């Protein structure tokens, strides 16, 4: 069954590591770690965390509610596929943000991902990403690991990346040749080539895996090191389920399992550094409340954000629940977003990097009006 979800994978899952402490300043290095899990395509928040206490849930999307969600409190449940995440909720090391989104209502993947990564309200208006800008302010260096350097961490210095090449029979160039090539380029290109070493070009020097779980394991292992990266961005594609999204089983629920295991992998590989870590999911928009004609959903507005990590103080669901009756929906079709997700990103930056909220809102998001949610999650 070939559907749209396959094309959104681009180069498939991706891992990006960034924010290596500058040599010689290790003792001042930032202790916190941030992992952003980018869910590409638009995750269905109502399927992941169904508001079971809201009567309208069943009225509006009868066929798209899992039959046995785990009950979290009178209002919210969680899809049973989130096993690891649910244990984290029990251990006060996870939280859920619901009815949330960046303030973008255009419903376009390309604009949406650009807003999510750039951190600006207008798509395609900036060439750096919010995480990159934060890393600049926090003075961490960067090293990305994927075929393309994602917008979200642009702006940081010293980016380079890793994504195993499979071009057989090619001879490795000498270091001298690499430097000569570098000498012909300017600016960013020169910087980027400068990161190539004969070692890094060898096949098999680091894991050659390209699936999200292996990449997450890679991230966890790297971030555990004292001199390791402070920032990781894991890309999980294929959430754009316009048809046959699934309920108890099916495509979206399979993705929930993948996300859940990613959380689990990160925790198990980070080991003692888990207590200094915050992981957060991001998705460009949620999906329509009612199902469309193909047992799927179309692009929407509000969705959920899943947070996990030792930096969280007490598990909870943070939501200003807008309701699901027709008059409560955005443009009569989507879950309203009543929490600006930028405030969540800001809180995570505050927790991991120790940056001041005002500094973050002004210099990372260029918007002084972003509210502070730090106390609700990490306080």
């Amino acid at each position, binding site marked *: 069954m070939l559907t749209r979800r396959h094309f959104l994978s681009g180069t498939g899952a991706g891992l990006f590591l960034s924010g290596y402490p500058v040599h010689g300043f290790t003792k001042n290095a930032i202790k916190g770690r941030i992992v952003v899990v980018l869910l590409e395509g638009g995750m269905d928040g109502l399927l992941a965390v169904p508001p079971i206490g809201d009567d309208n849930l069943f009225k509006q999307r009868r066929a798209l509610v899992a039959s046995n969600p785990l009950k979290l409190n009178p209002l919210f449940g969680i899809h049973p596929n989130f096993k690891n995440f649910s244990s984290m909720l029990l251990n006060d090391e996870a939280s859920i943000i619901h009815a949330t989104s960046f303030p973008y209502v255009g419903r376009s993947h390309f604009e949406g991902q650009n807003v999510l990564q750039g951190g600006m309200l207008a798509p395609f208006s900036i060439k750096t990403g919010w995480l990159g800008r934060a890393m600049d302010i926090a003075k961490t260096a960067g090293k990305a690991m994927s075929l393309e350097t994602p917008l979200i961490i642009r702006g940081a210095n010293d980016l380079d990346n890793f994504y195993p090449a499979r071009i057989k029979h090619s001879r490795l160039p000498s270091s001298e040749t690499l430097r000569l090539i570098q000498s012909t380029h300017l600016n960013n290109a020169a910087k980027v080539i400068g990161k190539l070493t004969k070692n890094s070009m060898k096949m098999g020097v680091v894991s050659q895996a390209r699936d999200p779980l292996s990449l997450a394991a890679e991230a966890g292992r790297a971030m555990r090191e004292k001199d390791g990266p402070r920032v990781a961005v894991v890309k999980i594609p294929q959430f754009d389920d316009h048809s046959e999204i699934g309920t108890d089983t099916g495509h979206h629920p399979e993705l929930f399992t993948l996300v859940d295991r990613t959380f689990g992998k990160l925790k198990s590989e980070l080991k003692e550094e888990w207590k200094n870590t915050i992981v957060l999911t991001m998705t460009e928009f949620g999906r329509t409340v009612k199902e469309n004609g193909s047992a799927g959903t179309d692009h929407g507005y509000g969705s959920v954000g899943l947070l996990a990590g030792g930096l969280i103080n007490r598990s909870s669901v943070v939501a200003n629940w807008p309701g699901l009756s027709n008059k409560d929906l955005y443009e009569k079709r989507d879950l309203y977003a009543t929490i600006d997700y930028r405030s969540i990103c800001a809180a995570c930056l505050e927790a991991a990097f120790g940056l001041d909220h005002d500094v973050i809102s002004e210099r990372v998001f260029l918007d002084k009006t972003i509210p502070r949610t730090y106390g*609700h999650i990490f306080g």
Partner: protein
Amino acid sequence: MDKLIKLILIVFINTYFFASSSNADTSVLCLQKFLKKTVFVPGSLDGVWGDKTENSINSLLDQAGMLKPNQNISAQDAKEVCNLLHSSKRDELLESGKFKVFRIEID
């Protein structure tokens, strides 16, 4: 002219009514007005202590960590709480009240 007299009468009667009510009601109104600035909605601004007002103020204080375990605010505490809402804790309460936090209650 008629309308103006009616208006003055209404205002007079209302303030008289409220002024002659017990202090608890003004305090209740004080709570309700504050709650309106948060996501813990008090129902109508009528100065009457009802279920909605009780639930809302308790939820807000609990979420802000200002409630002792098993403590429940009721009508007679209104004045004390009103003072709290105008103390140095005001900003903290306003910030906390911007978002609703639902605890995890898995057994």
